[in-house]
């Protein structure tokens, strides 16, 4: 039975279990649902889950483990001398896979019978050619050891699969029988089902932790290698970022950090007021039609690929700023403060535009959820709408709004393309927003995608930057959490 049908079968069994569980529960209560502890559907769901979950779990595990087991057993069969020089067992096994897959296909297509596939010999057939006709490309001619291994592979795989079908089916049946047996009117089905759901909720939340662990681990060792190659004092306390092909670079995070903060700050300076005002207008002033159109339209801003924003910064915003702040006497202001199109301001402005919907849409939802009675209370005292919004609605919506702003700030810190094209690639300390600067994130990307030696400090610094940034933003988030806790206003 192919795995697909096995899954279908288990699901069918579970569906059956649902009905059976329901029926049994009702029966145990003499047909009167009101005597049951829980709703009949919960009894059904209980049987359904006990049928489904263990069976699918085992199925999943089996599917994950079986290949390694088969691999292990088959690779044990391959004699040492069958591995060509400079090749590895792994590569031979890859060949075996390919041949086995080819044989499978051949059997499916009817080019070989199952019998033939099991006994075919390279001595008598040009297997590569035959498989080639079926569209299975092989890297080289099939060696006898490989073919044998492949046949063995198929045999073990098939028996493993057979066992799996049996085990999974039995497990599903057992789950069904067990839970069906336990179904009676006093069984706390709802609690059990809800506990199951609760477990799922916890699992979902833990995924975030797993992701974090994954991120830290995937960067940790490389960061260690970086610090072995480069002094940590220069990284954390140096003043210059100047990577160099020859090695011997100055790689300090500080100028990058400054650029990151500066650019993000300007972006937020654009996005937060615009987004908040837009949100307030949408939720408090705009009529339904305006809201129904403006909100989704603004949301498109979040979905325009950042490369478009990058080009927009480089080709439109940058030159426009130069014509205002630069060009000397010919410029609009007659000053020469800005020489190139790339600057902190260019990138910040454009990034701000991209972030508008992060603030506006999320805040709009939150503001909308503040109960009308709050507004009534304020308006009834003779407050204007704007006073109401500023002093009652916004404070009540604060935690959500802070969340939205944090999200926007996070995006700003993580953005690359706009910075690369809008802000330039020079790392320096400067207060002048009309100069180019760069951010940690863009440096991570460019050091990772560059042409330097991958084992050199110049490349590995990307990981150190990544982990440092991670720690820094963690600090910021803790701070934000603290602030929200402190100023939180709970209505009702």
């Amino acid at each position, binding site marked *: 039975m192919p795995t697909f049908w096995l899954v279908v079968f288990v699901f069918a069994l579970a569906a059956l279990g649902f009905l059976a569980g329901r029926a049994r529960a009702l029966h145990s209560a003499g047909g009167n649902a009101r005597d049951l502890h829980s709703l009949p559907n919960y009894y059904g769901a209980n049987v359904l889950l006990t049928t489904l979950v263990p069976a699918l779990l085992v199925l999943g595990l089996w599917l994950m483990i079986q290949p390694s087991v088969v691999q292990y057993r088959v690779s044990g069969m391959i004699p040492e001398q069958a591995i060509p020089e400079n090749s590895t067992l792994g590569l031979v096994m890859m060949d075996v896979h390919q041949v086995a897959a080819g044989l499978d296909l051949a059997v499916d297509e009817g080019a070989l019978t199952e019998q033939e596939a099991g006994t075919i010999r390279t001595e008598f057939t040009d297997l590569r050619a035959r498989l080639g006709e079926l569209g299975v490309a092989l890297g080289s001619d099939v060696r006898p050891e490989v073919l044998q291994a492949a046949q063995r592979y198929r045999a073990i795989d098939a028996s493993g699969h057979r066992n799996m079908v049996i085990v999974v089916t039995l497990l599903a049946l057992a789950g069904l029988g067990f839970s069906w047996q336990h179904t009676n009117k006093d069984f706390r089905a*709802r609690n059990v089902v*809800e506990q199951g759901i609760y477990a799922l*909720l916890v699992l*979902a*939340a833990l*995924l*975030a*932790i797993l*992701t974090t662990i*994954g*991120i830290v681990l*995937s960067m940790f060792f490389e960061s260690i290698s970086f610090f072995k190659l480069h002094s940590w004092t220069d990284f954390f306390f140096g003043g210059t970022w100047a990577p160099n092909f020859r090695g011997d670079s100055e790689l300090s995070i500080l100028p990058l950090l400054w650029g990151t903060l500066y650019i993000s700050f300007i972006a937020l300076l654009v996005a937060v*007021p615009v*987004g908040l*005002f*837009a949100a*307030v*207008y949408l939720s408090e*002033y*705009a009529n339904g039609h305006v809201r129904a159109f403006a*909100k*989704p*339209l*603004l*949301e498109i*801003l*979040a*979905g*325009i*690929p*950042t*490369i*478009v*924003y990058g080009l927009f910064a480089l080709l*439109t915003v940058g030159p426009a700023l130069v014509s205002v702040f630069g060009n000397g006497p010919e410029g609009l202001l007659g000053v020469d403060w800005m020489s190139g199109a790339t600057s902190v301001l260019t990138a910040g402005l454009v990034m701000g*535009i991209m972030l*508008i*919907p992060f603030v506006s*849409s*999320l805040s*709009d939802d*939150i503001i909308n959820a*503040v*109960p009308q009675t709050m507004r009534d209370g304020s308006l009834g005292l003779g407050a204007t709408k704007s*006073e109401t*919004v500023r002093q009652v609605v916004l404070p009540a919506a604060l935690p*959500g709004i802070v969340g*939205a702003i*944090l*999200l926007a*700030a*996070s995006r700003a810190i*993580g953005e690359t*393309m706009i910075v690369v094209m809008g802000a330039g690639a020079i790392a320096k300390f400067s207060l002048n927003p009309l100069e180019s600067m760069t951010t940690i994130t863009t440096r991570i990307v460019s050091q990772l995608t560059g042409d330097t030696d991958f084992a050199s400090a110049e490349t590995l610094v990307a*990981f150190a930057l*990544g982990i440092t940034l991670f720690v820094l*933003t*963690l600090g910021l*988030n803790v701070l934000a*959490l603290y602030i929200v806790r402190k100023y939180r206003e709970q209505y009702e």
Partner: protein
Amino acid sequence: MTDISQNGSTPRKHGETLMKLTARTKRRNAAERRFQAYGIAAIAAGLLMLAILVVNIVGNGYGAFTQTFVTLDVTLDAAKLDKKGQRNLDDIKKVSTFGYAPLIQKAIEAKVAALGVKTDLKPKDMAALLSKGAPAQLRDYVLEHPDAIGKTLSFRFLANSRVDGYLKGRVTRHSIENDKNISVPQLDLTDQLVKAGVIEKTFNSEFILGSDASDQRPEAAGIGTSMLGSLFMMLVVLALSLPIGVAASIFLEEFAPKAWWTDVIEVNISNLAAVPSIVFGILGLAVFINYMNQPMSAPLVGGLVLTLMTLPTIIISTRAALKAVPPSIRDAALGVGASKMQAVFHHVLPLAAPGILTGTIIGLAQALGETAPLLLIGMVGFIASNPPDSLAAGLMEPNSAMPAQIYEWAKRADPAFYERAWGGIIILLVFLVTMNTLAVILRRRFERRW
């Protein structure tokens, strides 16, 4: 009790007329109007930017939707294509695309001669008006129809991108002065052929349906396959991030005990939002490809990586939405004997749905436009596979994604790719708007102030 004395600091007089605004009211109303004006200005600014961007995009990209074609009668010379004459597929296959080029040169030479057009060009230069992919097109046809060998058939070939650019006005006689790929006589010939109807510009469905082509034939590049790549990734993202995100938020907001470890999770999640997207690529490479042995360049892996990236966005907005549901609703449900789970799923979640959908819209939009993490799991580059033929293939076979494709095109040297990059952005936006519209319609059904 205290007396209600008039001695208070009431600057307001009793019985003042309502018809005249007091100075203070005027001031407050001015503030009110300013506030409202800021709101309108904010929205107008946002929409204006959107309009500028869209005009920009459409202006740069609409050209990608038309393409120039050349129609020629080609004689499939048996002597060249099947020397043995046995119509044996293996033999025919031995003739590479280079072997087909002369057939095309002959065909265009014949056409030019038949039309009586005067030109000093050599056949090879005439054939340069055609896409470099033309021989491959012929070869594919012949391999599929071996019996066509020896016949003369009419084929519609893509024109070279320079010719296409000439018809679109991007390339002019002046601009090609130093261009070694095309010359003024070739443009003259083009003019003649256009007049004769051999060369024509039509709607380019291949751009929407086709797949990428190499740097030397921008005219053949299409975004269709990578659109499927994006579609499959979005399916994965939606199928995983929405339920996981909502489940995690429900746990954190409604069930989590107030303990240090729930705080850790909470801070963690907001922090994940700040992790640069490329780091998720590093993670994906390490976990999904190297550790879990998933295939390289596969939309499945891309979808998983983007799921991890979108989760924080969805969780943060969902939590904010859940937080905003008044506690009295929960009380009401618990009071009639609903379990906490039921109260959440029956009452709180529907009320929070608009916020959840907003998060989903923004999260998916972000995922749809993201390139950096795909760089590390091998979805950026030249991936000219055929459209997948099944769900499994769509998930597991190498593919690119729209933003990656656009990014690649934007980097390429030939300016014809630039136009395609913008055209790709138009398609991406159409895709995005379609996706959003569904969510927005759903969101509007849930929106109500209580």
